[in-house]
């Protein structure tokens, strides 16, 4: 038997191994949207790049390179739109996708709060939300870990690394 048979078998085996744990695939709509986003980015960037001036090959303008890249994006996205509908590599948004959304929102909230209140309060809040509501930890664990984490970060950043984070509590 040739080595490549075995390689192919093992590949299939690995694929099967990974298959077990994969969330449900998203289907053709996901593929179409993905390709369309690429297309929109490509077309938009091509128009903008054209506006920056293409120049000539001998004297390229600032827009030439981005224009070339944008055209490549457009071509590839169109190809993807045509041949990619049947792919199964996307993942359906499910109820648990809300967890990721909440996570993103806490990130944004942290960014908004930190300049106003220093990093301690948002850090404790972020930990509480992630541990208790996203992670399902007990309240006791949540409080202990949140406070401990914030304290460690306080000393690590302000005293260990001497990085001037905006902070509320001055020691």
């Amino acid at each position, binding site marked *: 038997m040739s080595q490549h048979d075995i390689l192919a078998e093992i590949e299939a085996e*690995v694929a099967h191994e990974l298959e077990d*744990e994969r969330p449900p695939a998203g289907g053709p709509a996901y593929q179409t949207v993905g390709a369309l986003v*690429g297309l929109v980015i490509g077309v938009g*960037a091509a128009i903008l790049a054209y506006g920056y001036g293409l120049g000539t*090959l001998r004297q390229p303008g600032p827009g030439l390179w981005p224009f070339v890249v944008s055209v490549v994006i457009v071509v590839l996205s169109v*190809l993807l739109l045509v041949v990619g509908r049947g792919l199964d590599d996307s993942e359906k948004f499910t109820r648990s996708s809300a967890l990721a959304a909440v996570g*993103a929102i806490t990130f944004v909230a942290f960014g908004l709060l930190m300049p106003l209140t220093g990093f301690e309060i948002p850090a404790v809040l972020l930990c509480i939300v992630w*541990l208790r509501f*996203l992670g399902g930890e007990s309240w006791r664990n949540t409080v202990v870990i949140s406070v401990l*984490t914030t304290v460690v970060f306080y000393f690590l950043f302000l005293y260990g690394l001497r990085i001037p984070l905006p902070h509320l509590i001055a020691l």
Partner: protein
Amino acid sequence: MDLNAFLDGFALVVEPKNLLYCLIGVLIGMVIGVLPGLGPAATIAILLPITYSINPVSAIIMLAGIYYGAQYGGTITSVLLRLPGEASSVVTVFDGFALAKQGKAGTALGIAAIGSFVGATISIIGLTLLAPVVADIALDFGPPEYAALALLGVLLIATIGNGNMLKSLVAAAIGLLLATVGRDSFSGASRFTFDSLQLADGIDFVVVAMGLFGVGEILYNLEQRHGKPHVPAKVANVWPSRKDLRQSSGAIGRGSVIGFVLGVLPGGGAVLASLVAYAAEKRRSKTPERFGRGAVEGVAAPETANNAAATSSFIPLLTIGIPANASMAMLFGALLILGIAPGPQLVDEHPDLFWGVINSMYIGNVLLLILSIPLVGLFVRILRVRPAILAPITALITILGVYTINNSVFDIFLMIGFGIVGYLMKKAGFDPGPMVLAFVLGSLVESSARRSMLIFGGDPTGFFTRPLSGSILAIFVVVALLPVVRHFWRRKSARVETAPGVAEVDSHSGPGDVGVAGDDGGSDVVVLPADTLDVAGVGERVRVAKSGAGQHDHHRTE
């Protein structure tokens, strides 16, 4: 090779401070290899801001340690939980978990650790000898070669990496586009800045990497994490017996060579190497039916190969300045932050860094061997830490880290933006790896291409008539066209042949049964033609995450 510089490098590494950073690096690597969630590329991305506050050599030593340390850690979960921590440990699952079920988890871990150590060390010796030579050759490269090489690198990552090739190429092209945001270095004109002052200087690589890899993976993991906690098997007697060692010594030797050679290839070097090494052992074995049922060689070969490959993937980065995978792209970015342009001049201009990093790997691997044989129990215990507890801590490290780069809240929001993009890309089946890689190489491609056009007086055929850049572009064309050719070839052969398809179709047979399919006389070689470039097909079809970000995606759904 400059022996003095080599020895100076050692002197540098054994400085207590650098030893400490090396230890911290490999320790973090082991831990994240064991823990579900972040892969090495994401971890390095999150820790990039630290390069601003510690000295360059220490920083790179530490970040490199994370990368090769993760390869050791990934083994532990493969063997104990049947959950490969890294994509390159997937094949280890077959025999490793079988051994664990027979109560021989310790043997599997011990052999894997020894194999990893030998493979990595042989590979570092290869790196030590080969890297300066390659760098020397690469000194002759001019802008056209760099433009062609960087493009080839991006293409190879997209082809060999995980996921659909077309999608990876779209992501890579968008990465190239992102790199053009900001002031054009030739004309001074602003591009894609939308009159934002913050964007005028372009987008910071660290912000993009931390967003796409770090935040993207953190958000993705939040969604995936709703499983039961895993209780690992008991580990006793990690020291392999003489018989086990004798049985796997051949596998370790061959795995080292296979890993070293394949690791140099851009893309999924470590993943591919582990597959090929396992296949090679099974093929050589007089008793192939043992494979999948607890053959020690089946653990030794892939674990040796993936470590050897992880090590040799430093060669393209340190010698020609082209990162071979997402983790190397992170190191590339870290070097740029430190004001060091990775490339052939590195060995001459920064011998301390060049030899410091290479030599730190000798020591790092000794440390890892100690961590993974006598101290393995410690890491098994880490498996019991719930991911929910670590998630907010990584989130805080990321958010505070990105702020510290420029003391800028804008960077936080930009990073979150890229994080959401990274998350959505994962959901839609796009691998963010090629995008980050193309982003980091983007300005090199553009400026080299434009300089070349100046050299050629505006005649693009110059790229093809120059022997060096011409050959690189020829490889580029072959790599680009290969999947298309193979697609049609396979279609044709699928129509002609029916029976030999067993190997591919019968993916549900247990690993112990695979020997059966091979008995048909090898008439299905067409499935995978026997050329080196065919490696492209492996990662592509299997869709194994490449050795960078996101390797936890599909098989670490804890």
